C-alpha cells in the first residue's frame, strides 16, 4: 500500500537524508518552522528537512534551557540534535515565529554547530502594511547567504522550478485531502499526518511521485474501518503519530480525524505560490497569505474563518483543541476558539501535549465523545 511507503519515509527520515546526500552530493538543511521558504533552499540544490522530535524523554536539554517553560516539541527537537540524530545536517534555518523556536535555534547554533546557520527575520504580523517588501528583502539576504555558502547562484530558473515542484506537491496534498470529506474517508488522520511529515522530510519531487501513486489508489480503496465520529484536531505543531493512532484505532468509540489545522497538516500546504516576475516577492506573498500560525494572526483573526470553513467542508463533528505545553500562541488562540466554537454549538475539548503522551488521554477523549456527542 502506498500509505505504508509514506509511513516508512517518516520512520526512516534520517536514513533517507543520509542516502539523499550520498546520491545527489547535495547539502541538507534542517528547519524548525514552516515559515521557512523551502523553495529558496530547494532552488539552491539543497534538501530542506523539517526537524522533528522523537517522543522519547531526555534530559539532554536541561543544561541549556529549563524544561519548565519550553515547548516540548522544540525541546524534543533540540534533544535529537544534542543526541546526534541530526549529525547529517549541513545547516539549520529558523524562520522567526515563536521564541521557543528561536531559543532552540540559538542553542543548536551554539552547541551543535553546522557549516551554515541562518535566522530569517519574518514579520511577526502576517497582515501589516509593508510586510511583503520587508519579507522580500529578508529573503534576498537569505538567498545571498545561501549562495555565498554554496558558492553558486540561485537563478530565477531554479526558483521557478522549485516553486513548480512545491506547488505541485501542495496540489496533490489538497487533492488527497478531498477524499477525507467522504462519508468513509480512505485516508485516516494518522495517514494524513504521515503524508505531511514525509513531505517535510523528503525531496518534494520524489514525494510527489508517491502521492501520485496514492491518488490513483484512493478512489477504489475499500474502507473497512468504521469512521465513527468525525474529528478535527487543531493547534500547535503536532507530530505525535502515536496519539493519532490511539484515537483512531484504540478508542472504544470509533472516531476518525477527517481534518486538522496545524503546521503538520493543512496549514503547511493549503495555498500555492502565485508565480510572478519577482520570485522572492511571490514567495513573500505566499508565506504571508498562508493559513497563519496564531503567533502571526493579528490584528484581525484570519485563522477562525479558515477553521470554520474546514469544519463545514469536512463535516467535523467535534474539535480537539490541542497545544503543546507552554505553547503560548496557541494557548491564546485556543481560548478564543473555545468560545467561538461554543457559540457555534460545536463540541470541543482542550488537550495539552508533552513529549510523551499522558496515560489518561484515551479516557478523556472517550469521555468527551460520550458526553458531548451522546454517541453511547
Amino acid at each position: 500500500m502506498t500509505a505504508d511507503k509514506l509511513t516508512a519515509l517518516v520512520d526512516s527520515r534520517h536514513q533517507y537524508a543520509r542516502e539523499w546526500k550520498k546520491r545527489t552530493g547535495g547539502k541538507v538543511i534542517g528547519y524548525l518552522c514552516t515559515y521557512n521558504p523551502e523553495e529558496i533552499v530547494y532552488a539552491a540544490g539543497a534538501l530542506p528537512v523539517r526537524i522533528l522530535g522523537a517522543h522519547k524523554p531526555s534530559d539532554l536539554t536541561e543544561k541549556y534551557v529549563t524544561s519548565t517553560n519550553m515547548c516540548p516539541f522544540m525541546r524534543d527537537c533540540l534533544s535529537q540534535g544534542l543526541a546526534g540524530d541530526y549529525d547529517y545536517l549541513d545547516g539549520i534555518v529558523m524562520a522567526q515565529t515563536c521564541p521557543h523556536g528561536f531559543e532552540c535555534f540559538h542553542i543548536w547554533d551554539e552547541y551543535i554547530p553546522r557549516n551554515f546557520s541562518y535566522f530569517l527575520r519574518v514579520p511577526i504580523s502576517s497582515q501589516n502594511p509593508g510586510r511583503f517588501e520587508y519579507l522580500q528583502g529578508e529573503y534576498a539576504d537569505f538567498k545571498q547567504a545561501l549562495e555565498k555558502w554554496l558558492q553558486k547562484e540561485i537563478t530565477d530558473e531554479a526558483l521557478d522550478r522549485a516553486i513548480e515542484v512545491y506547488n505541485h506537491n501542495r496540489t496533490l496534498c489538497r487533492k488527497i485531502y478531498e477524499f477525507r470529506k467522504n462519508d468513509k474517508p480512505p485516508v485516516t488522520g494518522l495517514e494524513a499526518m504521515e503524508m505531511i511529515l514525509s513531505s517535510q522530510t523528503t525531496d518534494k519531487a520524489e514525494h510527489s511521485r508517491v502521492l501520485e501513486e496514492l491518488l490513483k489508489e484512493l478512489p477504489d480503496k475499500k474502507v473497512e474501518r468504521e469512521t465513527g465520529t468525525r474529528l478535527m484536531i487543531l493547534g500547535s505543531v503536532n507530530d505525535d503519530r502515536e496519539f493519532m493512532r490511539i484515537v483512531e484505532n484504540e478508542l472504544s468509540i470509533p472516531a476518525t480525524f477527517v481534518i486538522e489545522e496545524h503546521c503538520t497538516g493543512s496549514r503547511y500546504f493549503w495555498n500555492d505560490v502565485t508565480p510572478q516576475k519577482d520570485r522572492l516577492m511571490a514567495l513573500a506573498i505566499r508565506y504571508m497569505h498562508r493559513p497563519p500560525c496564531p503567533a502571526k494572526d493579528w490584528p484581525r483573526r484570519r485563522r477562525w474563518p479558515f477553521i470554520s470553513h474546514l469544519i463545514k467542508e469536512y463535516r467535523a463533528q467535534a474539535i480537539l483543541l490541542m497545544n503543546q505545553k507552554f505553547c503560548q500562541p496557541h494557548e491564546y488562540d485556543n481560548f478564543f476558539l473555545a468560545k467561538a466554537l461554543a457559540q457555534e454549538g460545536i463540541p470541543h475539548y482542550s488537550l495539552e501535549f508533552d513529549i510523551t503522551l499522558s496515560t489518561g488521554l484515551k479516557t478523556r477523549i472517550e469521555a468527551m465523545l460520550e458526553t458531548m456527542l451522546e454517541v453511547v
Partner: protein
Amino acid sequence: MIAPKYKTAPLRIWPEAKALRKKFYDEYLNPAGLHIAACSTTSFAPFAGLGRDVYILASEPYGATISTHSDFSLQCLQATDSANLGRDLCSYQRNYYGSLVLDKFAHPDGVFDKFPRTDLHFSFATSYCNAKWHQLASEHQKLPLYLVDMPSVFPHYKKRTIDYVVTQMLDGIEWLEKTTGRKYDDELFIEAVHNECESYRVWADICVFNQNIPAPLDEKTMFSLYVLNALAPHRHETVGFMHKLKDEVGERAEKGIAAVPYESARFMSEAIPPWPFLKIWRYMEEEFGAVCIGSSYTFALTGCWKLDDKGDFVVVETPREKGLDIRTREDALRALIEYRLHWCMDSMYVAGVTKYTATKAMARQWKVDAAVIHLNRGCPPQGLTGMQVKLALQEAHIPVFTYEGSNADARDFNYAATLNNFEAFAEQLGLPRLKK
C-alpha cells in the same frame, strides 16, 4: 558585626518619583481625554500628536501594579484561570485580563471599582505576546485595535526594518485620526519624540553611574525609578524628573554615597523581578550587605544601548545629539524607530549572541561579583533565555544563582525555598552575615 564601608543616604527625589507615578495613574482615571491601552514596549510619542489630553495605560506596568496588591492579584489570576485563559501565558497579562473581567482597577492607592474607560488599543508588538494580549483585551472590551510589528533585530537592523515600521506607523497614525476623529499635530509628535529619546538617554546615563564603587543606586530602588519611563517617557515631566534624578545620582557617585553601605558584593540580576517578592533584594542587602547594581532588564527596558567596537555596553546617542534634522512626521518616525531599534525593550528578551555578549560586558563593566538569575515563568520569551544567560556568565567566571518564579503570579514562587537556596549561595561566595 561587619562595619559599613561607605556612607549612605536616602534618595532626595524619592517622594517625587512616587508622586509622578501616582499622577500618571490618576490621569488614567480622569473621565475626560483620550484613553489608550498599549504595551510599554510601545513608543508613546506618537500618541502625543493627538493632543495633550491623551492618557495611556501601559499594560505591563499595570500588570505589575496589580501583582503588588496580593489579594486582588489572586482574584484576577483566579478569574483568568476560571475563564480558561492558559496558565502558561504572560503573568502580567493574566492579571490584566482578570482585572478586566472583574471590572476593577488597581491603583497605587488601592483597588477601585470599575475599570476606567479605554477608548482604543494601540500597541507595538515586539513579540507575539504583546499582540495577542491586546487582541484578546480589545475583543473583551469591544474596542478598536491597531498593532505595529516592531522587529527585535538588534544589531541586525537595516534600512528596510526602519522602512517597515515607519510604513506601519504612518498607516497607524492615519488610523488614529480616523478612529479618534482628532487631527494629528506633527509638532506635538516631534516634541514628544525628543522627550522620549531624552528620557531613555538620561535613564541609561543614570545606569552607568552604577559602575561606580560604591554603587549609588540599588536595583530595587531603580525599579521604582525606571517605571516612569515605562509609563510616560514622552512627557516633559518625565524628562525633567530624569534630569533631576541624574543630577542627584551623579552627585552620589562623586561623593561616594552608597546605596548599600557595606557593598560586600556586587550582584547583577536578570529578568523581570518577582514583583510581589522584591523583599528578596532587601534581604540580600540587609542580611549580607550585597548590592544589586542592575540588570539588562533594568537598564534596557527603557534605555537604548549598543555594543561598541571594543565590546563595551554603551549608551546610544539620541537623534538630537546626532544632530538629526527632524521636521516632518516621517523624519520623526525614522529617527524614533532607528533609536528604539537599538538594544532596548524586547531585544533583551530575544535569545542570541548579542544578548549574552552584552550581559557579559555588563558584568565586566559594572564590576559584578555574582549574578542572581530569575528563571521567570511569568514571561515566556524571557524565561527561555535564563539558562543561556547563566552559561554565558559562568563562561566569564561569574558565579550564578538561579531561582524559579514568576514576575506577577505569586503562586509560582517559593519564597522560603528561594531564601534557603540563596543563603547556601551566599555561603559559597564567602559572604558573612551582617548580623549574628
